[in-house]
């Protein structure tokens, strides 16, 4: 995929007057004042678990997000979300999602939906704002940080919904299945850097980090498949009125871990996990969200006869969080506890284990229709074995205080 193509597509959809007249468009400018004592961030070649480290705090661009939606023929919805972080990504302004959804009217209580393009799998219950931003804090949980860093469905997703409430029932049910490519290297960032908590999504054509097998590799890039094997996920959703939503998903990128990319100087990562979550809104003021995710990722499996090398890295990982949020009028207060762990089950040389937990407190106040301010305090206590390779202690207590001013147009 070529950046010229993105430019042309964005121009086509954003600047065509006849389309724009009947379309939805948003822009969100998010500027931050940051105080951090974090270890060197992944944005600066480090293994800190925060987005901003102690050498790169102060006044920062949180993000500049742009979104566009247009409906064709009443049932085809085209969506594009783009973001700029001003942090040296090779694509200064780039897409995070770009897809079309075919969404016909329900047939009795059943409705099919088909998404084609690049978009997020239905895992996060926090990231509900346009542009896949968290509605509850600046930084999403460890689970959803990882989803934003390494996972994107670049392919097709089919959903079948049973709209039971239209039939007088209290429940709605949904089934999801998807096939996708471009995710053969998902798992590398997690295996090298461990879990982190930040709102820095990887863009479709961007690149952050270094390729290869260095200690701070952690390349964030969606790269074409070299093994020609489609990944898949399948899952389900259940909603009880507007009060409770349950989700479960099984994900498998089906990468051949012995496929070597000469462009990335790396082997593919076979990444599989299960995830589950719930969002409970018992009253109009309270929301409770919990998510859990656990899986494995393997690189250079010597069991494949086509191995270029026989290195064999295998990891098991899991993470979970619980979030409580209270809202009244223009005020929202949220607290979240994250717990995460990753350990290596096999290696030909270095073992890299990661364990930790984090507290996040966030307060948001809306100032009219367009402006809002968000104050977030985040502390992560973690250990990451790989830190010794860059001369840092394994254990770290990292704190970040951010004040964001947002303007939504």
């Amino acid at each position: 995929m070529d950046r010229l193509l993105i430019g042309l597509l964005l121009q086509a959809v954003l600047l065509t007057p006849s389309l724009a007249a009947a379309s939805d468009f948003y822009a969100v400018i998010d500027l931050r004042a940051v105080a951090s004592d974090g270890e060197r961030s992944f944005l600066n070649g480090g293994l800190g678990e925060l987005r901003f480290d102690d050498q790169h705090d102060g006044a920062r661009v949180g993000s500049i997000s742009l979104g566009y939606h247009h409906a064709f023929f009443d049932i085809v919805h085209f969506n594009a979300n783009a973001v700029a972080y001003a942090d040296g990504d090779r694509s200064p302004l780039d897409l995070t999602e770009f897809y079309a959804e075919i969404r016909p009217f329900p047939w009795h209580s059943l409705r099919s939906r088909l998404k084609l393009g690049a978009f997020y799998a239905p895992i996060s219950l926090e990231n509900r704002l346009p542009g896949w931003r968290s509605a509850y804090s600046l930084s999403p949980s460890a689970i959803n940080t990882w989803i934003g860093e390494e996972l994107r469905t670049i392919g097709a997703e089919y959903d079948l919904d049973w709209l039971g409430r239209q039939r007088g029932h209290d429940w709605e049910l949904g089934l999801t299945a998807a096939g996708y490519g471009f995710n053969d290297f998902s798992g590398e960032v997690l295996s090298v850097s461990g879990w982190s908590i930040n709102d820095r999504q990887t863009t479709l054509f961007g690149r952050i980090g270094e390729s290869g097998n260095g200690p701070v590799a952690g390349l964030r890039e969606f790269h074409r498949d070299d093994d020609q094997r489609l990944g898949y996920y399948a899952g389900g959703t259940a909603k009880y009125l507007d009060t409770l939503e349950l989700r479960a998903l099984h994900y498998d990128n089906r990468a051949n871990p012995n496929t070597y990319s000469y462009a990335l100087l790396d082997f593919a990562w076979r990444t599989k996990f299960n995830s589950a979550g719930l969002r409970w809104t018992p009253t109009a003021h309270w929301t409770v969200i919990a998510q859990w995710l656990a899986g494995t990722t393997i690189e250079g499996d010597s069991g494949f006869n086509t191995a270029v090398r026989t290195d064999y890295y295998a990891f098991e990982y899991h993470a979970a969080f619980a979030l409580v949020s209270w809202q009244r009028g223009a005020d929202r207060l949220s607290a979240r506890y994250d717990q995460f762990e990753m350990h290596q089950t096999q290696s030909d040389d270095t073992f890299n284990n990661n364990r930790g937990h984090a507290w996040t407190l966030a307060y948001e106040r809306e100032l009219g229709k367009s402006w809002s301010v968000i104050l977030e305090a985040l502390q992560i206590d973690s250990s990451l074995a790989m830190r010794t390779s860059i001369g840092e202690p394994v254990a770290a207590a990292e704190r970040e205080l951010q004040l964001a001013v947002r303007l939504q147009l």
Partner: protein
Amino acid sequence: MRIVAMAPIAGCGRIGARAAGTAMLCALLAGWGAGAAAADVTVTVLDNAGHGVAGIVIIAESDAAVPEKHAVHTAIMDQQHMQFVPRVLVVQTGTGVEFPNSDQIQHQVYSFSAAKTFKLSLYAGHKYPPVVFDHPGLVTLGCNIHDGMIGYIYVTDSPFFGHSDGSGQLQLHGLPPGNYTLTAWHPDLEEAGGSTLQLHLALADNGRPAPVFHLSRPLRSETAHDGDKRWTDY
């Protein structure tokens, strides 16, 4: 509920720009029952602690011949902050309902309920003419873009209907003597029989009965709606 008389009839007209506690004097509208000893009936809905329950749909249906229908009316089911407003509307058969969209984003309203199947293609503002609800029954509304938007239109042949007010009461005016079935309905009722309760009412000449619905369980919590943010269906 906003009810606008399209063709006002002498002796009646626009009643109840606010739904609670209002009932339609439809007998007067149609001139039906004139001269008979029509009665006013106050219906009350109480919870199990004896407090009035607001917003309950109440309908009085005569066991005798179906009363004449009143003049054509138009009611409004708005869309505000990604919700149907009002959430529950009760209209007489033959009423046209407008579906303006007061949000800044498009909605795609539909129903596949047996009493009325329709769909309104994506729109914003005040685009479509009223949809006429010409069969009695419960119509559940949805938005194909925002699945959380659920609304209800209860369509009845009877001209005697309304919502209970803040004290749980509704006055039905001008009921001729006879036998009636009183129905109380709300989507959040969780009674043993579901979301509907019924009473029989024998209305004699000059009678002024005051029937009471006693709820055995509290209403299910109001649908939670955490703000009017543009939640996206991720």
